[in-house]
């Protein structure tokens, strides 16, 4: 499967003992895995912990990965199982929040606020990243925007995009690269901006 060539290459390197290659897989799939786990565990902090555990488990099981399926499909299964196990463990040992429930209507909000570790700063940063990216996409030329949207939102391969846009695969590759460069430049402008916040993006 062409779409997994780079993943498989990284996996083979990890299997040869080059752990640095696994960092690239984590960087690539961290957002997807956290989102997946959050379907089971609503709390973002718990979801990140479980996602981290899933990545560690996947790393340890990687020597047994033969490449019969795509790496992400395999990782997806591990993440789902880890999330289910975490959920079952939580049901066996529920965390008790010592909240005064004496007829106070605000108590439920208070519990949810205690569970939610997202700070206002974190939420603001997330919102800022999304706005910046969406704004940058809106400013892209039509051909670049179509190419990046088909790739990132529809998950189409370069060949499928080429067929859809009626252009060579090489052109699709170039358009997607230029679209990313434009968005990335915009992100760096916003987050660098003399405040030195670029490291917050990586």
């Amino acid at each position, binding site marked *: 499967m062409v779409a997994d060539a780079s993943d498989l290459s990284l996996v083979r390197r990890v299997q040869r003992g080059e752990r640095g*290659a696994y960092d690239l897989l*984590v960087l690539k799939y*961290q957002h997807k895995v956290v989102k997946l786990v959050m379907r089971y565990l609503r709390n973002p902090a718990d979801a990140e912990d479980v996602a981290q555990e899933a990545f560690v488990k996947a790393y340890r099981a990687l020597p047994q990965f033969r490449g019969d399926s795509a790496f992400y499909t395999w990782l997806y299964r591990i993440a789902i199982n880890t999330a289910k196990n975490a959920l079952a463990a939580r049901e066996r040992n529920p965390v008790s929040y010592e909240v005064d429930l004496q007829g106070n209507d605000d108590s439920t909000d208070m519990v949810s606020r205690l569970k939610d570790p997202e700070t206002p700063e974190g939420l603001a940063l997330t919102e800022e990243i999304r706005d910046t990216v969406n704004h940058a996409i809106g400013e892209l030329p039509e051909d670049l925007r179509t190419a990046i949207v088909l790739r990132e939102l529809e998950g189409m391969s370069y060949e499928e995009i080429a067929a859809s846009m009626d252009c060579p695969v090489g052109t699709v590759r170039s358009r997607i690269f230029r679209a990313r460069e434009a968005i990335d430049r915009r992100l760096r402008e916003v987050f660098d901006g003399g405040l030195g916040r670029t490291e917050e*993006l990586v």
Partner: protein
Amino acid sequence: MIQDEVESQLSAMFDGELPVTECELLSRRIDRDEILRARWSRYALIGAAMRSEPVASARSGFARRVSIALRGGEVSARAKRGRKMIFNAAMSASLVAAVAGISISMLRYTASGSGAAGAAHSRLADSNVVPASVTGAAPAAASMRATTAGAGREGALLAGAVSADASMAAARHGGNSEPVSYVTPASAANVNTALRTELADFIVAHSEYSTPLMRRNLLSALITNEDGADSPVAGAAMAAAPARAAAGAVHATIAASGSSR
């Protein structure tokens, strides 16, 4: 221009659209190039932001935490393996030491038990002669006493129990030309005691479980004992058992009283 090509390759690799051979080379380059690595991370962030995935993990150093967890796991696994090996070695060593200790104790206990049983017989025999193989201070002292006191037949007999040469010399020196006609055999109980102890030492010394230090100590003790048995003078010097010295003194006294008569 070359950098543009590399970044274009990076974008294609991120989408899994780069040939495997190029992926291999580029991924190694990313390992060394922090800028490419950061760009790879931001490509992931852009896609996540477009799909409304949680991007908060990007700022919280998620990948770094995973990396640290993996490193910690490797270190702890190595440490665990090391601890297990040390524990196994210590357990084996203590087991071997315990078995060796028990074996020596049992053999020595058995030997001393049979020695006690034959003690009466031994004492009876000691009243006439010195056991030849017991060696050590007793025969040497007896021989010396017999020589210096000009002992008679009993003195020569006592000395002769040590060795034929010693007894002959003592007899000659005493001016009594009557040859020694016989040598009373040594007490069987005492011979057995010495042999069993030495045999036990020998077995432990040559056991595959004995430690080099223990083996060396036992072998040197064994050699020392053998030396003592071969040479009465050396035996006298090395004699450590007070009982043997006491026995020698008794025999010497008998010899002296015999000569005075």
